[in-house]
């Protein structure tokens, strides 16, 4: 696997903004002193007159973004997921969500894959926080290709969107001819009958690798990439539940309020089947490298493989 191309989704975000700036003259980008890390600096360099660094003041950044949006701008406001959605939660809810303004909260450094910075900077609640806001679209791209497509889709969608990008380099898994991104539509990566494993974000790669290990044990898993957690692809989830009778969700996010919860909301209502939620089990993060932490929290291929086996009682 050493020849697999690895790029961080935040890199895709920065590149996409810089590429799309020309096509969308109303695009405005804001940051809170993290432009080099969130990669919004790439847009800032190319379109300085449409880039605003608010300084270390996330609350003000988000409400200013709302004010800019009232004049017809499409505004991306970026920081680390912790500060964008945590510190400025109420500004997102009241200044952006409630008036349905055209602001995209594009957060990088989501999840425990942030790595060494540790728990204060590892946001594992962002999806839960954003999912609760009426009308907010919540999207967690799985790789470079999907992240780029998601930025365009967010621009073309009128209204608030939350995008979660990661810090670490992750494999490019969607680099294929027939790849198609559509907000709200899940992607079946492999058909199977014994269990459906649904991944989001960088955990989709863990799911793809785990499936191969399960196959060697004679387990035929269906695997699905859910990049849009809200609105979630209910039809697809129901189809999977009816087909495989068991579902596993995988996310580098708290199991409270994230992908697993969103899938359970659908399954409970439409097609009750057992669901196992693989994720961060109601604990804070900790320091360590990305790979070490993905293993420690059992979110790598090995961790997913083992937990699916436990779930299936095999």
């Amino acid at each position, binding site marked *: 696997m050493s020849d697999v191309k690895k790029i961080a989704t935040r890199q895709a975000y920065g590149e996409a903004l810089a590429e799309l700036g020309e096509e969308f003259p109303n695009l405005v980008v804001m940051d809170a002193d993290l432009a080099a890390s969130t990669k919004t600096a790439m847009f800032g360099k190319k379109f300085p007159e449409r880039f605003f660094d608010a*300084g270390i003041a996330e609350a*003000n950044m988000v*409400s200013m973004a709302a004010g800019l949006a009232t004049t017809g*701008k499409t505004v991306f406001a970026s920081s680390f997921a912790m500060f964008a959605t945590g510190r400025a939660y109420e*500004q997102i809810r*009241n200044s952006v969500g*409630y*008036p349905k303004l055209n602001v995209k909260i594009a957060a990088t450094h989501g999840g425990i894959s942030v790595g060494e910075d540790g728990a204060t900077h590892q946001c594992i609640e962002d999806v839960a926080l954003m999912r609760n806001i009426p009308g907010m679209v919540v999207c967690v791209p799985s790789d470079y290709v999907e992240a780029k497509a998601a930025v365009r889709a967010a621009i073309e969608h009128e209204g608030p969107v939350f995008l979660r990008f990661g810090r670490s380099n992750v494999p490019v898994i969607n680099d294929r001819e027939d790849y198609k991104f559509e907000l709200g539509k899940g992607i079946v990566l492999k058909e199977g009958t014994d269990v459906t494993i649904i991944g989001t974000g960088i955990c989709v790669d863990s799911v793809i690798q785990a499936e191969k290990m399960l196959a060697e044990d004679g387990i035929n898993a269906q695997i699905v990439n859910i990049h849009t957690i809200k609105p979630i692809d209910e039809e697809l989830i129901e189809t999977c539940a009816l087909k495989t009778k068991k579902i596993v969700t995988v996310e580098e996010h708290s199991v409270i309020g994230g992908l697993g919860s969103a899938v359970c909301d659908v399954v409970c209502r439409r097609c009750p089947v057992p669901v196992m939620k693989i994720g961060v089990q109601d604990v804070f993060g900790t320091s360590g490298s990305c790979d070490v932490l993905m293993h420690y929290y059992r979110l790598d291929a090995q961790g997913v493989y083992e937990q699916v086996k436990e779930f299936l009682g095999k």
Partner: protein
Amino acid sequence: MENLELMKIANKVRQGIIISTHAAKSGHPGGSMSAADIFTYLYFEEMNVNPENPKDPDRDRFSLSKGHTAPGLYSALALKGFFPFEDLITLRHLGSYLQGHPDMKSTPGVDMTTGSLGQGISAAVGMALAGKMDKKDYRVYTLLGDGELEEGQVWEASMYAGFKKLDNLCVIVDNNGLQIDGRIEDVCSPFPIDKKFEAFNFHVINADAHDFDSLRAAFKEARETKGMPTAIICKSVKGKGVSFMENQAGWHGVAPNDEQKEAALEELKKAGEVLCQM
């Protein structure tokens, strides 16, 4: 417009505040009354707005950062012609387009959804940034309470506005001296207010919130100030215009009952009649 005309309108704005909060059986009359003359001056003298075209991209903008004083804003908007004055009695009722706090999506003439303190000034800064970016001539106004100055976000926004030299932005502080828990200097004093805004690179003007000559001079000076935003600190009286409501923190978030409404309207109408004889 002559001061006398503005005074007559402000008197009606105050009547609207009493009528609407009484009908809602809740709301914030105290801070609405202290800001009534400011609302009147903004909508009838200062701002370039047109009720026939409330979304005109070239209009001046107003963000009511002290969003709880929506009854004052609604009353002024109704008198300006954005919607019927009679609808003020639907304030805070289910299905009404007059929400408890300003909602830009439901009320004609409301430029920003506000109510959570500190956010309205940031939105105004965003609008002013957009104006500069688009090379538009419109001005942006935002009204803050003095208690609201305790919110940290106010100073994040002010720091950015001063830094960006947004001379198309005018911040107005309704300095009525009272917040829910009592006198602002007893709760968490924001004084000296003028020196704080000066330190954030604002041009600062002190004015009398209930004297139209003072307001006229202040807003003229603000418009003529280039290279920095302006803050107008307006000394005001909470509950202004109804004797038993004046300077009472208790009237921050309590609506008048039937008896109080009648007494308040009688006093306001008498004051209005006096104005009409002048």
